[in-house]
Each structure stands twice: as C-alpha cells, then as structure tokens.
C-alpha cells in the first residue's frame, strides 16, 4: 500500500505559494504531518482528500491516479477536515445513514448495521438520537471518525483532529486512531509535536508550503544525537546568544533564568551541556534551519 504525492504545487494568489513542489511517499501505518499554523498543512490535506484541486502535480494511491479518477479513490478514502459543521436538526443515526448512502451502501439493513457498529466503536451509542449539531467538541470529533469508518477506508486523512480537545479527550482520540491504523494508511496533520511522538512511524515537517524533513521520528531523533546543547542564561543574554549560536528553543526555569537549546555539530563551548534530543528539537531545528535558507 503506497500513497505518493509528486511535484504538488498550489498557490492562492500569484505571489503566495501555499504548496511548493511537494513530494512525499507514504506507506502503511500512521503518518504525521507536522508544521506551524499557516504552513500549508490543511491545503495539502484537502488536496489529498480531493476536496480541492492543486495547480500542478500528481497523486497516486497504489494504482489509482487520484486527480484523474477521484471517484475510485474516494471509495477507499476517509477524511476528517479540521473544521466541519453538521446539518442542524439531524441526529447521529440520520446523519450516518445519510453519509452511508453517499458512500454507496445500498441496503438499508447494511446501513443500519454499520451505523450501529461505528457508533459503538466511537462510543456514541448513547447519544445517537441527539442532534449532532449540539454535540460537544470531543463528541463531534468522534462523530467525525464515525463517518470516516462507514466505508471501511484504506486511507484516512485527518486534519488537526486534536486541536480543541482537552488532554483526556485527545488521548482517547489518538488511541482510536491507532486502533484503526493497524491495517491502513492514516495521514494526520498537527502542530503539536507530542501527537506525532507516540503514534507515528513516519512523518514530515512542513513550513511555508515546503517539506523540510521526512523520515521516521526515531531515526530523526537519532540524527540529532550529540548535536543539541543546552545552557542556562540570564534572559538579557538571549539576544547575544541568538546572534552567536543557532538557538532552536528557549524556556524559563523556575528561578526565572532561561534554558536555551542550540543546535551545533560540536559542543559550542564548555558551559553547554549535551542534551537528549527529542522530537520537539527536530521540529524546531528544522524550522530554525529553514529560517536561514535562502530561496
């Protein structure tokens, strides 16, 4: 099972390229797309979900040319947009039946069966008769997953599903995704590094419409071994340090001093201590590197 994006570009206005020559190859498992707000994640996700067209480029899912034959692809696709609304005055049963029809489930008996099943899986059975437009944030996200599951998709695209969820909800939600991911491709975008850390076997970091880094999170972390250094400084010194070193992140300690992480192939000076790199460091390193890249 392979999902590949080749040379994909999309611009909204002539000057502003939302996506710039994107190339990604994704295999089975969970794929995380990490990037700050406005990086082009949602545009990429929408194009991958065939709800928006790119200016250029190709998308393949196994043998299917997605842009030329979107219908065959959509039969295998599940998609949860970052934000979505729901027809008012309809309950979960009705809405899932509605989506099941759209997804081509012909018999009403089958639709009933699958609706029961996905409601059970997403733990919405008790609120099935409640109007979905009145659901809470977490319930609504789970309803989003429920509608994804209706057509037993081979590829699932979820766009920032965890934003707006409280930590407990978020955890449950990610578990649900992992459960489904066992046999499928799941592409999910986020700006929260922790989302990727525990879940994904593959990932890409995107910023300003370009892919900055791809690979498995473990391998990426390994790459930074012996390259991340930390030092405690006074907050007034930050400016100077930023000038001298490649500062990737900083945070306040309890004593109000500043703990600064820098990237360096070698130990910058004796005061620096070798730090255990994490996924977050990769993210910031990549973004920091990007800042200095001249296009």
């Amino acid at each position, binding site marked *: 099972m392979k999902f590949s994006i080749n040379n994909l570009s999309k611009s*909204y206005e002539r000057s502003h390229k939302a996506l710039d020559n994107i190339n990604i190859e994704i295999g089975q498992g969970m794929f995380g797309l990490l990037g700050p707000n406005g990086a082009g994640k949602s545009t990429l996700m929408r194009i991958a979900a065939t*709800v*928006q067209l790119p200016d250029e480029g190709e998308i393949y899912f196994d043998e299917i040319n997605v842009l030329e034959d979107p219908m065959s692809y959509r039969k295998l696709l599940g*998609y949860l947009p970052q934000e979505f609304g729901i027809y008012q005055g309809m309950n979960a049963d009705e809405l899932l039946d509605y989506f099941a029809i759209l*997804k081509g489930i*012909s018999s009403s008996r089958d639709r009933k069966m699958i609706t029961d099943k996905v409601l059970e899986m997403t*733990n919405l059975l*008790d609120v099935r008769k409640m109007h979905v437009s*009145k659901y809470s944030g977490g319930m609504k996200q789970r309803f989003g997953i429920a509608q994804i599951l209706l*057509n037993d998709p081979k590829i699932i695209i979820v766009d920032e599903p965890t934003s707006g969820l409280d930590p407990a909800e978020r955890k449950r939600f990610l578990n649900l995704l992992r459960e489904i991911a066992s046999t499928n491709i799941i592409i999910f975008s986020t700006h929260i590094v922790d989302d990727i850390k525990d879940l994904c076997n593959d990932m890409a970091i995107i910023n300003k419409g370009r892919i900055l880094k791809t690979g498995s999170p473990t391998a990426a972390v390994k790459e930074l071994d012996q390259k991340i250094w930390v030092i405690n400084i006074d907050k007034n010194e930050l400016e100077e340090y930023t000038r001298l070193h490649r500062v990737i992140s900083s945070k306040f300690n309890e004593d109000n001093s500043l703990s600064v992480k820098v990237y360096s192939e070698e130990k910058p000076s004796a005061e620096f201590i070798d730090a255990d790199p994490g996924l977050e460091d990769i993210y910031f390193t990549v973004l920091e590197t990007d800042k200095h890249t001249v296009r």
Partner: protein
Amino acid sequence: MFIPIIKFELRLWLKSLSFYFYSFVFFLAALISLSGAAGIFGEGSGSTGIANSPIDILSTAIFFNKLFLLLIPVIIGTVISRDYLSKTNRFLFSYPVKKSDYLSGKFTNGFITVIFISILVMSGMALGLLLPGINSDQVIGFDLSVYLQTFFLYLLPNLFLVTVIVFTVVLRTKNIYSGFPAVIILLLLTKLISGIMFSTGFGFPEITADPFGEIYFENKIKYLSASELASISIPFGFEYLINRIFWMTIASLVLCYTYKKFSFTVTEKIKERSFFKKKELLSESKTSFRSLDIKFNYTFSQNIRSIWRLSQYDFNYITRNLSFRILALIGAVFIAVLILKGNTDTGVKLLPVTWTIMSIPFLFYSLLIIFLTFLYSGLLINRSESTGMKELECMTPAPDFVLYFSRLTALIKIQILMLLIMMISGILIQIYSGYYNFDIGNYIYTLFGIHLIGFVIWAVLALFIQTLVTNSFTGLIILVLIFLGLDNVPIGDAGSLVLKFNRNPEPDFFLKYSEISGFGHSVYPYFVSKLYWVLFCMVLINLTIIFNKRLKADLISERIKNVNLRFYGKKLMPLTGLMALFILSGIYIYSEKKNESEIILTEKQKSEYMLNFQNEFGKYDSFPQPRIVLLNFNMDIFPDEKSFTAEGFYILVNKTNYVIDKLLLKSGYDENTSYTFSEGTELEAYDSVLKFSVYKLSKGIEPKDSIKLYFSIKNISNTILTQNSNVLEDGTFIKSNIFPHIGFINLKNENKLNPEDSISHLNHYQRYDSDLINIEATVSTSKDQIAIMPGILMDKREQNGRNYFHYKSEGNIKFVLGINSGEFNIYQESYKGKELSIFYYKDHSNNINNFADGIKSAFDYNTEYFGEYQHSNISIVEFPRSEGSYATTSGNTIQISEIRFINDTGEDGEENTDISFYTAAHELTHQWWGNQIIPADAAGALMITESITEYITAKIYERKFGREKALGFLKIQYDRYLKGRAEEVDKELPLMYVSPEQTYISYGKGSITFYILSEYIGEDNLNRILRSFLEKNKFQGPPYTTTHEFIRYLKEETPENLHYLIYDLFESSDFEKFSEYYKKLDGNSN
C-alpha cells in the same frame, strides 16, 4: 459604540457586490417603469394617460413597495447574518457592546440601506421622465411635492413596518431566511383581510386594518374615470392618518418587544453528558469492524436509489421547518377563502365543480409554489457550505449527478406536496359546500399531469441560477427578476413561444377547461412547449452539474478552473448535442408557428397592413353589392378529426338601382373557401391575408335580378400547435363567420354612425350583406352526437354510421347562425303550444328547471306585453366554456355557455342571482328585441337590443322573485356601470349613442334607465310605448330603425313635463344626475 457599529456595517455594505446589484436593479426598474409609461417604447401605459400624474407616481411606488417586501428580508438577513454566519456573534457578544447599541446599530443599518434604495427608486422614477424618446404629451411638469408625499405618506411608513417585522422575525428565529416566509405571511394576511371583508366597499375598520394603506388608496380611486384620476392629488385624509398612526404604533411596540426579548447569551448551549466520562472509549471485547458483511454498490441503479433516499433528507429538512409549515397552512386557508369568497364576487355563484376549485386559486397558488422553489433551491444548494458540512459530503464517492438530482427530487417532492395540499383543500371545500361529485382523476390529471412539469422546469432553472451565484439571496432576486421580466419582453407570438422561458403557449390556458371538451386542443401546444423547455432543462442540468460547487474554491479563478476541468471531460459531447437539439427544435417550432399565425403580428403592423390594403382596395368600397336572401348548405362535422366541410350556395339579389358587375367576397380566416358562380366570372384582385377577393362578373346583375354563388368550405388543417377549426371532440359550436361575407371589408367601427344619418339606416346592426334570409341546411355529425341549428328539424336520419339533420328556418331570419354538435342529454317540455328543448351535457342537469322557468316567465311576460312569439319552438344548447362564457340567440335557438349550467342557485333566502333563470329570460326576450325589431347599423343600436332586453329581464325577475331581488339585480348592473366607467378610455357616451364595446352603458346603465323610466310613467305605459315602437318596426328591411326614432317616439308618448327625464337619462351622460335617479330608486325599496 452605536456610531462605530453603523460605520463598520455601512462600510461592509459598500464593499459588497450584491449591494450594488440590488441598487442598480431597483433604480433601473424604476427608471424603465416610468419612462415606459411615458411612451419610450412606443405606446405609453399610464392608467391616467399621464405618466407622472400623482396617482401614477403613487401606483408605481406601491408596486415597488411590493418588490421591497422581497428585498427587505434580503437586507436584514444579510445584516444579521454577518454576525451569526461568521460566528462573530460569539466574540461580539463578549465585547463591551451595549445591547441597545448593537440592536439599534443593526436595525438602523438595515433601515438606512432600505431607505437608500427606496430613494434610488424615487429618483429613478423622476429621472425616467427625462430620458430622450419619451412622449411629452404624456408627461406633466415635475412636482417635487408629489414625490415627497408619496415617499413620506406611503412608502416610508410601509418600509418601516416591514423592516421592523422582518428584523424581529429574523432575530427571534435566528434563521436568516425566515424573513421571506414572514413577508409572504404578512402579505397573505393583508389580502385575507380585504378578501374576507370585500363586499360592497370598505369602511373605516377595513381601512385601519390594512397594514399597507392600500385599501384606503384603492377606495379613493375605485370608480374614477381616467380623466378624473389624472387630476387628483395624492390621497390623504383622516382615515389614512389613523391607519398610519395605528400601524406605526404597532411597529414601535414590536420593536420594543424585540429589544426586551433579545439577549446576548449565545444559545448554542453545549452540554457535556456525564456518561461520557464514565465509559472507556474502546473496549477490546468488541467484535472487529471488518467482520461485518457490508456491501458497497456504485452501480447506476444504486445511484438512483441513493437519489431517492437523499432527497428524502432534503425534503424533511424543508418540511420540518416551521416557516414552511406556516406557509403551507396559510396557502390552504387562502385557497379556501379565495374559492368561497371569489366565487360570489359578482353575485353569481358557481357550483364547486373541480375545475372552479382548481382555477380560482391557481394563479395565487402557483406563484406561491414557484416562490418556494426559488427560495428552497438556494437553501438546498448552499446548505452544506453554510453549515460547514461541504467537505464531508464532497469527499464521498457519490457522483455529482446524485447530489444534483437528490436536490431536484426534493424540490419536486415539495411541489407535489404543495399540489396535494391544494387538492385536499379543494376536496374539503367541496365537502363543506355539500358537493360530493369528486373528480379525483381530473385533480390528478390537471395538477400533476399538466401543471407539475411547469413547476419542475422552474426548479431546474432555480438550481442552475443558485449554483452560479454565491449566495441564495442574490439567486432569489435574480430568479424573481427573470420571472417578472419575462412578461415585459415585447416579442411576438412565435418568438415568445421559443424565447420566453417556460411560458405557456396560451397564458390563460387553465381557464379554458371545460367539462364537456376537457382541455381540448390546447394540451398539444402546451406539451410541445413544455417538452421543448425540458430539452433546455437537460442542457441546464448538465451545466448545473458542471458548475457545481462541490470542490472547495475560495476564489473565482479557482472555481473557473474547477469548471474547466469538468468541462473538458466527456460531458462536452452530450451537452453540445442537447444544445443543438434544443436550438433546432426552437427553430422548428418558431417557423411552424410563424407560418401558421398570420404575417401580421403586432397592432402596429396590423394597422400598417390595413392602410396598405385601404390604398390598394379602397376603390371598391363604394361598389354596390347584392344581398344574400337565401342560404342553403350541407355541412359534415367530424368531431374525432376536429374538422368540418361545408358546401352550399347563396342566392344574391341586386336590391340596388344599379347594375352590379363586381362581386366583393371575404371568406373565413381559418377556412379554405372556393367559389363557383352561376355566371361567368374572373378574379380581378385578391388579398391572401384578409382572404378578400374581387370578382368581375362577365354579365352584370341587373336591379332586382339575382345570381347563385356556390361555395365549398373546409377548415385549414389543424397542426400540433394550432387548432384551426372550431370543431371539438364534444360540444362543437360553429358560428356564421365561416361563411363568406359579401361586400367590402368593414373597416369602420361598426354601429358608430350617427343615427340621424340616413346612410346608417341601410344596414342592420349585425350584417351589411343581408336583411332577413331563408336558411336551409343538412348537418351531419358522428353517430353519438346530435347537431342543432336554427330552424325546424325537417328530417333526421342515420347513414354510413353518421347522423344527418335537416333544418329549415321558419320564415326569414337574421343571418346569425350557431351550429352545435355534441353528445347531449335532452330535456323537453311543451308550454302553451310551443316546444321547449334543452340540450345539455350529462352532468349539468342542476339548472335545467331554472332555464325552463326563465323561458316560460319570459314567454309569458313578452307575449303579454309585446305580442306573439314568432317560432313554433325554442331550443337551448349548451356549449363549452372554452368557447366563451356568454349566451347568444340565433333564430329559434339559444346558445348558452357551460358556465351558466353550473350556477349554484343556492338555498332559498340566499342572495345569489339566479343566473340560469336570468340568462334564459334575457335570451328569449331577444326574440322580440333583436330578432323581431332589428336596429340600424348606428350608434345606440345596443340600447334597442340590450338595454330594453335587460330592463324586461329585470321586470321578469321582479315578477318571479320580488322587487327586492330585482333591485339586487339592478345593483349588479349599477356596479358594472361604475366599474366600466372607471376603465373607459374614451369619454362616456349618452345611452342613445352607446357604442357596441361600451357594455357597461348598454347593459349596465341601460337596464336601470328603463327601469327608472318605468317608475316614473308606470310599467304598463312604458311597455305600451315599447310595443307600439316594436309593432311599427318589426321584421322590417331597410331603412332600419334607430334610437333617434325611439326617443322621438318616447317623447311623443310621454307628458312634456317628463321630457327633462328623457333628456337626463338618454341624451345626456351626466353621471351625477343619473346616480341621483338610481339612488332614489334604491330608496324606494327601504
């Protein structure tokens, strides 16, 4: 905070494209309507003849007031939706904005926009009169005060009231579309008030209860003639002031209420249920999801099933909506009111037969259905986008056409539901009226078989427009403009058939339904035209699917790109094919229709043609012509083929003192006629459009000599678009215009010569080519039908599976023929030695006794006062209402429209006029007044026939039902007079010079005039004078009698001190005096 909110909001308006669109459209419409009334497109159309008379300015403003009913919900909806749609309400309500600032800001903003556009409308009206090309005769000087009065007294208060109501409803329901149902409900309620209260006039309570002040206005101008209208100023008075104060108070109270009830609390309360926290999200024990055996099916048949299932969801969405339910309910109530009240408006009440039940409310109801279609098409198309569910829907593998057709199907279901509501309301009304002859088949055939397709075609257009534009409001306005605009495009018959979207070939086609002949031929052109537009709809459907809004596109360029992508697919081929097919069939229909309809299309072309004709043929005008003295023919009527043939001859006698060597012949328009002569002839000139020919006789006809003219007539064959013959499957009614006319085409308006001019005495008022003639004929028809025509039935036989009837006139009669054929039931009765027969359609037996009574009463009255009835029998024949709603007499037959056979005479004590009795009495009275005495072709002719007949009918009515009923009957005539007078474009003529089209004088005023006279000199005296006038002139040839002679007669027979009365009533057209006489008459009864 108030001012910033307004500024902020106004800036939003100025940035919005739709604001400019609405402003432009309203301004342009105002400009066009006034410049059009002032004759910029040719003839002007102001009600007063002056385009900018105060009344016309006000009427135009009131018309625009109606359009504003549509625009205000758009504006208010937009203003409020800016918060709710963009969800800024959640933020805004947490800012330190005061409720009063927020509400008044919103309201002021909406109202300012409304006022701005209404000022544009007023200035458009003023500027329209400055355009080049207007007719300066139809414009008076600009008067600012008229515009100001119109604006401040009428327009502004109404706009305020509507804005308040819409604002309240939208805020209360939190549904930005709910303004539309609200204004419709308001409009319907207003009409309901005037409908329920409509009786003889409007009093103070009705005027006050009318929220728009229109009743006051209409009351003021109701019976004014054009010249009176042109001179009055904007109506304003105490009653109106009260009305305005009343409604402005209500509007203010409603506004206060809204303010009090409004709360900033966001109502979208989100409740977290406690069970959620107790349960684990996933339990391992649950069976795997993949073990389910779910079948996915993407076949065509599955798609069709999906369309049906999905449409049910859309249908539920609409029908669960409260405003839809209210509208449907009000629609049903309105149907009931229209039928129950509308039916008795004229004092004549029809039985609630199925077609009346459907046709009375149909116009109103179809407008409602079309409006709902326009509104809900937008809501359905934009629903997934506006709720944010679009992306979820978009990524499913459902084909585009499934999504499209599910919406179309939902709209059609809504239309069907509305029609079902109409049908059920209709049946309930029938039950309520005690009429149990339910014709369910007719309901279903008419509503669903015939009319549904027209609504569906509108639905397709609505979905197309709503797909092209980004918001439902703009779509709705465009659709309404298309709908209204179509009426005002000036193109000919053939052009409008193929160019005016979804226009019925015959606009009043519904009104032509007859229980005898059904819809007749008109269903063929109807379905041809609908099929043609269905072809167009298939193009539209393809385009709508291509232009769909499924993919995300924030920019127009992106949308165009999406469309392009779909366009270059395989859809292009069928689309081009369909388009070509549509255009080809359009050309075909156009050329067919153009061939059939005469070259003459417009009034202008017609008068040009007649001018040319006059130049070329005018020289024949003065040629002496022989007169018809005998007509003999054989006619074969073929009801199944809807055709007939006739062969026969005239005997023409030279009654002049000159030798006649040219014969001028005019044959029927819809027939092919060929001639053979007993003498040698040569065709000298021919006009193929008017079918006018001039033959040169090789041997002239000497004075008192005669020739035979043989003719052979066949109707021009019917085509699918046009029926050229009068023959129907059942209920055929052929008139004498199929037979050739002798003499020059009468270009002068008939019956307009001065009665003192002796030239007018040469011809009688109905024909200029014959006096009284002898008619003999054999008419054949199919074996299940009977043929009836004037004369005595000499012989009846069956031959070759057809029925033959041989008729011969008793003595000589006027050449006015009615030939009927149909499957009739026959009622027969012998009365005082005369045979009475009534030929009627099988279901129409309700009024037979009333007809018979009318005949007998009229027979008794007329024989008592005016002498013998000249025939041995009298026959009444029913004809379908598609041929007219009138009654007429030819020889010893009376043809009466179906509509008078379904008269509801009601229970005793009801106020209904017995129209059947009246009709029969009126027509029989014509045997004396019209058939025995025949007036000359001069002004006032109809006073002798119709006024006297109506007067006698009133007396017969009085004798039968009492004076009160007779006065009720005269009241109807008086109202008819007032109405006709108000619509008169020329000046009102005195009764003795009445022209034929002024029936409000000849029937309305005339009947009352004679009745008043009988009050002054006594019924017996008046009738004695009438009789001696009759005796002197009956059965005469030329010179024919005139009103001039009659008045002389009258004056001789009445005392001199009453001559002023004769002058006032007959010779003058003094309205005030006449009204006084009438009112005295009414006073006598109290």
